[in-house]
């Protein structure tokens, strides 16, 4: 059997968590500097780490009209801090280019070639309406207009047998029409191509020959899975994103080269792993969650570094909050997501997103109830307290009224104005006959309820005991709610990372290179079919390692994770069953594992029924850089007076006006322990600790916050 089969606990970890001693060996070709850059909606964050352990940070304004300018500015800011750009060995990049293109519909102009009679599948999709109670529905976004959807006679049956060959005459006509239409990319999706891709390849070859400069995407290459709509939509999303992503990555590479960086550029994919920029374009649909994936990769690294395998992230920005649950150090994945009215099949970190962020707006609805979000003040005009024209009250304004956010300067040069925050909160307080302070408490309480519900959704609602999990709040607004969430939910503790505002950027650096392969099998799990399946794993693993070796990954750093999507024959959805390797014995154990997981997940199983293997999957990870330190015991020490930079009165929910110490994070030494209430401030975030909660500074300088006794906090 293959030599690099990963132990099961390593499955799906982009960082190869806990994969053993081989990763600790010093690499002779170790880079002098590695840089990671996370280009978000408001800020572009960058971190450089040297092999000598030096760390440099930069935060510059993002440039949405051309994000590569922000990249250049961030690199320049690092250079000013002494990072020698010619000595940079690697740049990792998280980008929202694909996310924004799908959200705004500013997609490339793609064409589709499909089985005759089925070009409109992109129009009727699955025939469902998103809101059954609306008589004034919004028309769904269109991936490829009807005029660019072409049909060709060809057909396979449900066993993959050819019913009709590709009509070459029609193909010539389509090529002639495409010459006129001049699309920027072409998608090809035929019925049953996941079973037999011969026709797609035949047509693909002809199109690639006829249009050498135009990217051509085959559905059997990007989404070799059952059901024509999701497969065609995924292929179309890929084609429509490709021109945009490839152009951007070209500009980004040029911007870095112009700055003097000569190293390869890696791009974070939605699956929490990186891929070289020159290959990222071909898989453009896999970049849709590139941004948040960095935070999740960082979470996995934190789990390893703190030896805390069970974590729940709370990545809170201005308009939304991403929550992700890490269990046993493994990043959770989903293979299906909804992207702007369409279904996208791509391995994606499983993030639950809610429309509650610092900028979420509070309003009174028609029934007289107070609602918070999902409307947001966004970056423009921003919360009222920023003084940039916002008048409606937001969660940030509530914090300013309560004093948890102090007047003063924020990252990015914004100044907080308390009077504006009060005026905004009064808009909801007066109609509810509340004081401004009560209004602020109510806004925060409801906003907090959304956050708690999101944390419950990924934990308790999936049958997991939240008391075994630590909350990791990051992003600009996450740490503000660390103490409050800890008080409202029975969690193990909260861990506020060293650089909450730069956490996602930092995560990019520790993510490895990653390749995902899958194949629909649709066979019963019987001994006859097993050799064929293990042969697929063998061949795919060999191809993937070869690819990673070409990308510069050391042979000893390639890790495989195999799994299979299974169901009872007759069911329509599958459960993903992790495999410990893929020898025959392991594959034969699949039905038994499936029955157990079906029972655990859905509360019933049927051991007498045949189990079908629908899709087999192999994830190949190549580790590139491991510089995060491990937590170590550190002697306890008291809070030094220098760390306390002042005191202010804060209205802490449940405590009333409370004199609270304001602590400077950078002055906190490892081992320091103290009790709340406390406001901990740093360049990129503010953390709020409630009375009686204890804070301990780990050797890694992450803050560990605990409740005094769990029993009390359960209620």
């Amino acid at each position, binding site marked *: 059997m293959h030599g690099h089969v990963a132990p099961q606990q390593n499955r799906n970890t982009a960082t190869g968590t806990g994969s053993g001693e081989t990763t600790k060996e010093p690499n002779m070709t170790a880079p002098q500097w590695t840089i990671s850059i996370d280009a978000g909606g408001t800020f572009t964050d960058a971190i450089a780490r040297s092999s000598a352990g030096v760390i440099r940070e930069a935060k510059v304004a993002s440039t949405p009209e051309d994000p590569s300018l922000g990249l250049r500015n961030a690199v320049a800011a690092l250079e000013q801090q002494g990072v020698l750009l010619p000595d940079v060995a690697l740049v990792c990049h998280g980008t929202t280019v694909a996310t924004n293109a799908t959200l705004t519909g500013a997609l490339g102009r793609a064409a589709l070639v499909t089985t005759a009679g089925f070009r409109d599948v992109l129009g009727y999709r699955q025939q469902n309406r998103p809101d059954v109670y609306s008589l004034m529905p919004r028309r769904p976004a269109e991936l490829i207009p009807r005029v660019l959807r072409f049909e060709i006679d060809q057909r396979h049956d449900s066993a993959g047998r050819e019913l009709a060959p590709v009509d070459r005459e029609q193909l010539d006509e389509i090529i002639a029409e495409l010459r006129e239409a001049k699309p920027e990319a072409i998608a090809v999706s035929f019925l049953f191509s996941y079973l037999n891709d011969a026709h797609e390849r035949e047509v693909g070859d002809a199109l690639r020959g006829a249009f050498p400069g135009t990217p051509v995407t085959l559905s059997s290459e990007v989404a070799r899975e059952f059901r024509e709509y999701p497969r065609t939509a995924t292929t179309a999303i890929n084609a429509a994103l490709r021109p945009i992503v490839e152009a951007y990555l070209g500009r980004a590479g040029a911007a870095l080269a112009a700055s003097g960086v000569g190293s390869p550029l890696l791009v974070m994919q939605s699956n929490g792993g990186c891929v070289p920029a020159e290959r990222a374009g071909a898989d453009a649909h896999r970049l849709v969650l590139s941004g948040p994936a960095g935070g999740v990769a960082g979470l996995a690294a934190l789990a390893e570094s703190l030896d805390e395998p069970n974590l729940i992230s709370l990545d809170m920005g201005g308009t939304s909050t991403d929550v992700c649950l890490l269990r046993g150090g493994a990043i959770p994945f989903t293979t299906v997501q909804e992207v702007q009215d369409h279904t996208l099949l791509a391995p994606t970190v499983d993030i639950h997103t809610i429309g509650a962020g610092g900028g979420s707006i509070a309003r009174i609805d028609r029934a007289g109830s107070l609602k918070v979000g999902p409307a947001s003040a966004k970056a423009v005009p921003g919360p009222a307290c920023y003084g940039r024209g916002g008048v409606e009250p937001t969660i940030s304004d509530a914090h300013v009224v309560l004093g948890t956010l102090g007047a003063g300067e924020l990252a990015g040069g914004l100044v907080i104005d308390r009077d504006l925050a009060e005026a905004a909160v009064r808009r909801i307080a007066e109609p509810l006959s509340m004081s401004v302070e009560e209004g602020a408490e109510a806004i925060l309480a*409801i906003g907090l309820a959304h956050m708690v519900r999101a944390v419950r959704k990924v934990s308790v609602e999936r049958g997991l005991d939240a008391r075994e999990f630590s909350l990791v709040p990051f992003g600009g607004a996450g740490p503000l709610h660390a103490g409050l969430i800890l008080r409202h939910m029975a969690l193990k503790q909260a861990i506020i990372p060293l650089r909450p505002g730069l956490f996602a950027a930092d995560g990019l650096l520790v993510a490895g290179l990653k390749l995902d392969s899958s194949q629909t099998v649709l066979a019963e799990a019987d001994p006859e079919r097993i050799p064929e399946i293990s042969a697929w794993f063998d061949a795919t693993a060999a191809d993937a390692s070869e690819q990673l070796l070409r990308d510069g990954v050391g042979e000893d750093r390639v890790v495989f994770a195999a799994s299979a999507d299974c169901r009872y024959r007759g069911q329509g959805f599958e459960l993903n069953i992790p495999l410990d390797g893929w020898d025959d014995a392991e594959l034969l154990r699949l039905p038994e594992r499936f029955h157990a997981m079906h029972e655990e997940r859905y509360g019933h199983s049927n051991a007498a029924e045949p189990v079908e293997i629908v899709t087999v999957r192999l994830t190949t990870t190549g580790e590139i850089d491991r510089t995060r330190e491990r937590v170590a015991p550190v002697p306890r020490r008291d809070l030094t007076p220098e760390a306390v930079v002042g005191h202010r009165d804060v209205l802490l929910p449940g405590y009333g006006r409370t004199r609270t110490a304001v602590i400077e994070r950078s002055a906190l030494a490892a081992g320091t322990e103290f009790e709340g209430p406390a406001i901990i401030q740093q360049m990129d975030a503010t953390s709020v600790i409630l009375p009686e909660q204890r804070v301990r500074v780990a050797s890694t300088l992450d803050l560990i916050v605990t409740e005094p006794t769990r029993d009390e906090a359960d209620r």
Partner: protein
Amino acid sequence: MTAVDTVTFEVASAALQSAAEEMGSVLKRSSYSPIIRDMDDFSCALFTAEGDLVAQADYIPAQLGAMSLVVQAILRRWRDRVSEGDAFICNHPYQGAMHLPDVNIVTPIFFGGELIAWAGTAAHHIDVGGVNPGSEGPELGELYGEGVVIPPIRLSIAGEENEDLVALFSENFRDPLSTLSDLRAQRASCHLGAERVHELVALYGVDELLEVMQRMLVSVETTVGRLLDGMADGAGEAEGCLDDDGRDGAPTRIHARVEKRGGRLSIDLSGCDPQTAGAMNIPWASARAALVYAVRTVIAPGVSANDGLLRVLDITAPEGTVVNPLPPAAVSIRHNSCQRLADTLIRAMYGIWPELAVASSQVSFFSFNIGSTHPRTGAPSVMADVVGGGTGATALGDGLDGVDTYMANVGVMPTEVVETNYNVRVRRTEFRPGSQGRGAFNGGLGLVREYEVLEHPQHATFYAEQTDARFAPAGAAGGEAALPTTITVIGPDGAVIDQPRKTSRVLQPGTIVRVETGGGGGYGDPAERSEELRAWDEREGRFASPGRNSERPAHAAAAAEPTERN
């Protein structure tokens, strides 16, 4: 309302809502039948101890508006004998259910020995016995032929599955494995709902949670009452017709008169025709669901859905009419009548508030049931498919293309699912250009789908409404009506056999059934459609198909082509 009350209510009611949604995802992902798992023909909800629906997952309004009557029917029969671990099953259209394939599974939720709530699911099963595969038949005159009638009885008794019932079902249903597995998935979904309610009791206390449930009802009642109060008083009426009575007879009249005074709305259905000879009758649970749906969409689309809404309605629906039939009248095609009723009620309300009007969506609800076999295993199974059409245009824009409408939201069965599971080939599924009603904004497009029967003769039941141009989807504010729906049956020799409206028959291999569904009605004067939209219509081939489609042989010729078979 104090701040704390507002917050607790907000948080706990949202948690009940999310529990209902979670029930839906468990059912969808662990069920067997494509009609549940791929097409979403199911619903999940939580109820008070007395059977008022408080929280639901928004799947199929036609089922949701009805489910509380099932809970009430269970209470009538079992009131003091309900015990923990029971799971009730019911599909009886005259005891709270809708038509026989929609089977309800409902479980009581106890706390400290007291019944505090119910969790319920309704799902469309592919077959529950009867004369026709799929348990539907427009021609049938009595309930008894439609399938096995299940009054509210116990599928599980105190946690143990009722073996007798399982044995009875196994001998009466055509695909017992799928059906029994789907029933178990429904029961698992109810258990999950109960578990979530217990967690909320632990979190907030039982009295507090029950108070929240009552307030959810009151909140909807108050909100809808207030919204009504803020609207102009007045009366309106509308008429809509079914093409026939289910047996090729005369059209059946559906009529609604609505009157709004202050915070109340009265609805009078006494203008509807007597119950029909065929299976077009709407059992009361379904008619009630149509009222709830129509009122919510016109008056309170943003308000959460629960039974609080019913409290502001005064309803007249005489027994013995098509909207409140007497047993044992057949009801299996009730959904088509129900969609027609929803459309008629909505148009009656526009009589009071013309400024709210939108054009009508198509209500053909083409359904295709066929007793087939699995191509790989040869095992018998029943396929149930539904093909949507266009929605009505509005003052804001064109309608939606190719969707299910109003009270249903069923997906179309993916072609790869059809061909993998049944000996049926889908020859095409595409837009039907020109089917939309014209206006300043046009209706959405209908669909064309062709099924070809493979391998062996197969018994099929298929039917549609709005095949009669007089009853096609209406325009609004000067917009035009859409095209009616057409069904065409083409024999193995390529010759058209007939164009039935509603039929049950055996189809020989090589036979093709083609449906062309209606679009949505247009809104506003067609002369006022902008140049920009006209150019888009032209470019996108929305009235005719330029380019490749026009070169495809005409429909009849396509059917005459030899069919490949393996």
